[in-house]
């Protein structure tokens, strides 16, 4: 059919567009020439150089630390915020609360970065804290904008949540706090995990906000990459990109395999139940 082949071609071109740059990143990481795009034979020396590059390795460690802490904080605060938004009905300041939770989703990064930096400078002037820019200030900044994403994930999960489960727990004598920890939280746990992963990725990915609020000793990996990339291409960066792609792809593959297996198990169980065994 005509429209079928058109779709097939369009989709194939689309996927080519999505993956060609990634493939070129990987290919040129094995290129034995400093001019990244001129092929000079196969080598793995850039990977060796990557691990000898103290600045990059340090930046990567800072990034990981910041991402883990910020994602965890964002998940805690974002879960509470999402819960408040979907379960608390009306309260004083709800409009302000909703606005503050959703605004970071549409806020240009440069504004978030600038405003937080100015706050930190002002606070330091007034109270002495925070003393300069450090990993702490990046963590605060990342927690703030990741919180919004987690809140949205949790809120949409709670919107599709059968409220009678919570009511049943309460009806059986559980107080609200107990209901939350014994029923709500275990059921929305998958949403929390994906919220955490999203926050973790966003934090690892952010170059702009971190550029504003990072100090001399606390450069994150994206900030370091951004400043190098602005000076031009470098095969070391290609090697780094390849490593990141491999890690993400493997993690993604494992996660989806686990999900598929869980889904199959669930379906088998349901069939068994329907058969009345």
């Amino acid at each position, binding site marked *: 059919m005509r429209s079928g082949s058109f779709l097939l071609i369009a989709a194939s071109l689309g996927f080519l567009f999505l993956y060609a740059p990634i493939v070129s990143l990987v290919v040129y990481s094995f290129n034995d020439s400093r001019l990244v795009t001129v092929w000079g034979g196969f080598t793995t020396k850039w990977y060796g150089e990557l691990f000898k590059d103290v600045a990059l390795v340090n930046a990567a460690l800072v990034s990981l630390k910041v991402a883990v802490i910020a994602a965890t904080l964002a998940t805690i605060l974002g879960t509470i915020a999402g819960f408040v938004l979907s379960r608390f009905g009306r309260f004083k300041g709800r409009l302000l609360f909703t606005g503050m939770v959703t605004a970071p989703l549409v806020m240009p990064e440069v504004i978030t970065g600038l405003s937080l930096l100015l706050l930190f400078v002002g606070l330091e002037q007034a109270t002495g804290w925070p003393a300069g820019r450090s990993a702490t200030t990046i963590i605060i900044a990342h927690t703030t904008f990741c919180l919004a994403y987690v809140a949205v994930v949790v809120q949409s999960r709670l919107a599709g949540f059968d409220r*009678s*489960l919570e009511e*049943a*727990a309460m*009806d059986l004598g*559980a107080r609200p706090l*107990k209901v939350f920890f014994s029923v709500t939280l275990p*059921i929305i746990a998958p949403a929390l995990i994906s919220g955490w992963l999203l926050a973790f990725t966003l934090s690892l990915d952010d170059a702009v906000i971190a550029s504003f609020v990072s100090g001399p000793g606390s450069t994150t990996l994206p900030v370091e990459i951004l400043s190098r990339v602005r000076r031009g291409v470098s095969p070391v960066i290609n090697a780094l990109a390849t490593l990141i792609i491999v890690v993400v792809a493997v993690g993604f593959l494992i996660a989806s395999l686990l999900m598929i297996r869980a889904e199959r198990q669930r379906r088998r*169980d349901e069939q068994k139940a329907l058969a009345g065994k």
Partner: protein
Amino acid sequence: MSLAQKPKVPGAAARAPWADPDAKPFIRIRNVTKKFGDFVAVNNVSLDIYRSELFCLLGGSGSGKSTLLRMLAGFEQPTSGAIEIEGQDMAGAPPYDRPVNMMFQSYALFPHMSVADNVAYGLKQDGVPRAERDERVAEMLRMVKLEPYGKRRPHQLSGGQRQRVALARALAKRPKLLLLDEPLGALDKKLREETQFELVGIQEKLGTTFIVVTHDQEEAMTLATRIGVMNQGQITQVGEPREIYEYPRSRFVANFIGDVNMFEGRILVDGVDHAVIDSEEAGARIRIGYAVPGREGDPIAVAVRPEKILMGRERPAETENVLSGVVEDISYLGGLSHYRIRLPSGKRVRITQTNRDRHEDPITWEEPVFLSWETPSGVALSS
């Protein structure tokens, strides 16, 4: 004008607590109103329910029956009015402090807990010691015939099994009052009929007071000791199933429960023990066996159930309650036949007859017929 008399209900349980003016109600709902913004979900409802009753709240969607149930459970607070359980005012009491448990329409089984953990959940909240808890869970699972399924997760059960787990979980705490929201709504027809009897059996064995919300009139008739019919936030009639069917007190109840023929007319004679109604629609005078409310000349309707109408080719001797018409449609169902008769006024009357005899010469399409019924079969409805 005469004082309106209530039709005497023959066969009403004489010793039932609701017939005894001295009996103390277990649940008292007094002038309860619930508003959501401008919308009045429950409008000034007063109702007494007695211990060990199986009371059905029957109504369509949006009639307020579920809101009333949720107020009993404590999920909603009345806008005004009071709810008492065993003489205790429940105002402000949260769901977890009430001696009431609920079985949810969706069952609301916790998907991350096993069947046994689901049943034990309420006992855990009360701090019941482990040994006693296990024993009670086993007892409950035995009662609903699910003993071997304790370790399963809810998604590993069939619909009927889930329904029974929900029942076991709600009963595990031995509540004084069990609320059931459309308990059989999610089951298919065959399973529903079996489960109805099981539910009644369990209720009779435990003696717990049940309040069931349902939109299914057959279900209400089968289960209930008494039915409260709800419409637009109000309770329009409370009574035993038979009373509701035979003596509906309003056009709404007569129409909502079972099939009915309704003849609009005016009061012609309003005697001490009878009334005569002139109905143009029916093309006849209709006699009612008791005094009706209202003055002579007031509009009124007469309801007659299809199975109470007799049909024949010859005109009966009586002068009242006799209608003539033409057979318009017949549906033969084997044991029963439904007829639709067209009256000269254009009104259609429905009749149900049991096919007791194998007629050689059955009444057929377009045949003129006479319809009649005995005086006690007619019910006058002014509202």
